[in-house]
């Protein structure tokens, strides 16, 4: 078996070398495939990455297999190759056949074996072809193209934006800044545990956004933070009666103490009103509430380190509040009411709770950050809007139109269905008169957005704020009727949704609401309403308005008015 053993050894060595050569030749292809996979992974295209990886692996396997097919040897084939190379006329192959036959060779066969064995040492040196490492020129070209794609991002389109850092350095710094502000706010001992928890969660969401690798992930985290802050805002400084009703007794007492400390007469008045209402309905006659109020006043005050009374105006107001709490505790509601009324008068009108102001500032910054992130994600490209974006843009356009704004400067898209759905949320109405000056005419005399013009028959008398349900800010032109009436394909629909977006509405719209919305509103305004259809629409709009009204952009003094508007829209069948 000398010949066969030698051939086996040589075949193994040759196979190893040929395999290394094949791999070396395929290296550029492997590298190109790996680069494509990394490229796809960087763009969060996991499926594409897997597909590219599998295809690349298969292609490389085929290449290597094809390369090895003609060079992979076993002893007989290696003997054939050697016979061919050394022109030995099948001597080695015949010898292998004799040895592998397993029978005792005859005389002539022994001569053949002897000759083959004599040949083996003579050809041993050059038996195994040397290792020649060469790469495929085509593979190198493919690698070069892939490298070009990798470093320049050619052909990646929207996904070409670098995804390694979802937020820019500046954005991350801003997120950190907001998180620090929230941290400081949460450390305020007057904050309720619920608010603190929400602030903490919002802070975590910001941290998550700062470390996110994908833009969508960062944006989702920012949205979550925004939602949490939206929820926390009314708990810090509730303004409407409904909001105040939702507060717990402790929160109410805390906010009353906070408003008193800040000297916000309006809020003190409202909160005191709510407090007295609750005390009146309480079974213990308001004793518990009085104690809570007293504790809250004590917590909000800054006592003199030398043991004296806080002589500041804030301290005095809190002392009065504590006195009112005492009165309530003792069942002397009249005295408590009187003290609180005095407190309202003593405070300055319009002073804002500093905590609420800080939170509002944080929310504004967060809103800006979200907007910037979204813009960066879109890359400022003129790609076609998605259905959701068209929806948001149309809603924004409707809001603009409802507030009398001229069409925006953006690239008007007017993408199809965005008009119908958008105007539903836009639902602007030109309220001609401010509260207090007599209510203007309600909608019903004009047409809804998308169909023509919104009603605007009222007249602005005293230059009050021109109001739209979803419009932020104030109208500049006093006295004119609110021009609304978005056309279906608004040219102003390209504005980036910023602070008011459909996805921020926390209430799920009733199924099927958008369908036939214009028709239902139109019929309702013409007196042909169907309670069920309109009720569904009104509920949906009320939910939207409710969510929006909690935002800072809606003036606090107008929220009740808006609330009443939607209450007025209720049909008789509504509960």
């Amino acid at each position, binding site marked *: 078996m000398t010949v066969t053993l030698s051939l086996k050894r040589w075949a193994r060595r040759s196979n190893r070398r040929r395999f290394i050569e094949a791999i070396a030749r395929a290296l550029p292809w492997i590298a190109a495939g790996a680069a494509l996979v990394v490229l796809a992974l960087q763009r969060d295209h996991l499926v594409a990455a897997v597909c590219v990886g599998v295809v690349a692996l298969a292609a490389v396997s085929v290449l290597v297999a094809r390369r090895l097919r003609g060079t992979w040897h076993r002893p*007989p084939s290696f003997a054939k190759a050697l*016979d061919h190379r050394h022109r*030995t*006329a*099948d*001597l080695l*192959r*015949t010898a292998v*056949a*004799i040895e592998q036959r397993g029978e005792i060779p*005859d*005389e*002539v*066969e*022994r*001569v*053949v074996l*002897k*000759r083959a064995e004599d040949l083996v040492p003579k050809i041993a040196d050059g038996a195994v072809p040397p290792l020649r490492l060469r790469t495929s020129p085509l593979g190198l070209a493919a690698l070069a193209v892939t490298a070009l794609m990798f470093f320049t991002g050619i052909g990646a389109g929207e996904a070409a934006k670098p995804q390694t850092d979802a937020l820019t350095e500046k954005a991350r710094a801003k997120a950190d800044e907001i998180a620090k502000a929230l941290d400081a706010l949460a450390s305020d001992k007057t904050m309720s545990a619920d608010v603190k928890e929400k602030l903490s969660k919002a802070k975590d969401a910001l941290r998550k956004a700062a470390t996110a690798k994908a833009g969508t992930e960062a944006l989702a985290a920012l949205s979550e933070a925004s939602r949490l802050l939206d929820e926390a805002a009314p708990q810090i400084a509730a303004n409407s009666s409904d909001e105040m009703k939702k507060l717990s007794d402790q929160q109410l007492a805390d906010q009353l103490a906070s408003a008193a400390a800040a000297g916000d007469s309006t809020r003190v008045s409202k909160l005191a009103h709510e407090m007295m209402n609750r005390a009146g309905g309480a079974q213990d006659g308001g004793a518990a509430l009085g104690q809570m109020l007293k504790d809250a006043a004590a917590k909000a005050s800054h006592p003199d380190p030398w043991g004296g009374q806080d002589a500041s105006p804030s301290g005095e107001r809190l002392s009065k509040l504590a006195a009112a709490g005492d009165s309530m505790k003792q069942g002397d509601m009249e005295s408590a009411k009187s003290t609180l009324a005095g407190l309202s008068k003593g405070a300055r009108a319009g002073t804002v709770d500093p905590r609420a102001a800080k939170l509002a500032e944080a929310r504004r910054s967060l809103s800006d950050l979200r907007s910037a992130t979204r813009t960066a994600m879109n890359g400022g490209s003129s790609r076609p809007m998605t259905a959701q974006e068209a929806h948001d843009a149309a809603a924004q356009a409707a809001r603009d139109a409802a507030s009398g704004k001229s069409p925006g400067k953006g690239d008007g898209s007017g993408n199809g269905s965005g008009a119908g759905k958008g105007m539903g949320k836009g639902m602007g109405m030109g309220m001609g008169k401010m509260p207090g000056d007599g209510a203007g005419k309600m909608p019903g005399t004009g047409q809804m957005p998308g169909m023509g013009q919104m009603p605007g028959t009222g007249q602005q008398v005293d230059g009050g704020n021109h109001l739209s349900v979803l419009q932020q800010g104030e109208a500049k032109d006093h006295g004119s009727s609110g021009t609304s009436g978005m056309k279906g394909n608004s040219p102003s629909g390209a504005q980036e949704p910023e602070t008011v977006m459909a996805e921020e509405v926390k209430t799920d719209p009733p199924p099927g609401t958008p369908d036939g919305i214009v028709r239902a509103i139109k019929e309702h305004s013409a007196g042909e309403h169907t309670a069920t259809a309109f009720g569904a629409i009104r509920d949906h709009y009320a939910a939207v308005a409710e969510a929006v009204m909690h935002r800072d952009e809606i003036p606090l003094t107008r929220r009740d008015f808006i609330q009443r508007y939607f209450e007025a829209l209720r049909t008789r069948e509504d509960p």
Partner: protein
Amino acid sequence: MNDIAVLSPTTSIDEEVLQNATASLTTVLAELGRVVLGQETLCREVMIGLLGGGNVLVEGQPGLGKTLLVRTLADAVEITASRIQFTPDLMPADITGTQVLMRDDSGRSTLEFRKGPIFANLVLADEINRATPKTQSALLEAMQEHSVTVAGARHVLEEPFCVIATQNPIETEGTYPLPEAQLDRFLLKAVVGFPTMEVLRSIGLSTTGVAQTTARRVMTKDELIAIQRLVRQIVVAPHVAEVAAQITMNTHPEHGEAPARVKKFVRFGASPRAMQALLLAGRANALLAGRAHVGTEDLVAIATPVLRHRMILGFDATLDGVTADSLVADVLATVQ
């Protein structure tokens, strides 16, 4: 002359014996080449036919040294040779021999078999295609069985026995082409080519002088028989036998792997006897080359003379001028 004792049937074969055999054959070929000028291939093919114990059909124009080759071979090897000139009136008995009435001293008559010219070691059947088929077929038994049957009595021919038949391809009028069955019994068909200018000049000079070049006897009959036996012991590996079988199969037009031209021009492919001839001639060729085993190149080297007369070509081949040799080349291309 080499030591013939080393090649006796009882001698064990080793490297030295093989080398001696090869040397003897080389010497014989050298003697042939010295007398028959410019026909090395023909000499080698005839030698292979002789070593393989087969018969050789030599085709060539008159005057190319066919008869000289046979005579020279008989001179170089210690064997008997006879020559039969085939004519249309040649009778089988003229070849095999006949019984003649003999009268002994007592006056009693007896029939006695008188051997014909077939009873020789080397028989030259000159212009075999001029004899009638009946006469031609008288050679069949001798060629295949190495025996003749006359008047019911079988007479075994002495070994070694080899028929070397010649035929002229150009004078076909009044000839009787050999039937396929008889063609198949020739181990090889050698084609004698026209010599080159230099060879022609040498032939003219060496054959027209006073001194005639003759071959020396360099091998005995026993030595030849021993070498014939040794040829059959040459090793054929399975893969070589597979190649031989594949070559044979690919001469058949109905075989899937046969070349396109074979499918088009060949009516009938080679018989299984061709496969045997391939291996036998391959062994002889290997021994002539000094090898103890048959390689694929041995098969390739002798495939054309082995197969060219075994492939029956169709009419299209005649019209298109396609030769059997070119078709064999196509067949060989499928296995290389």
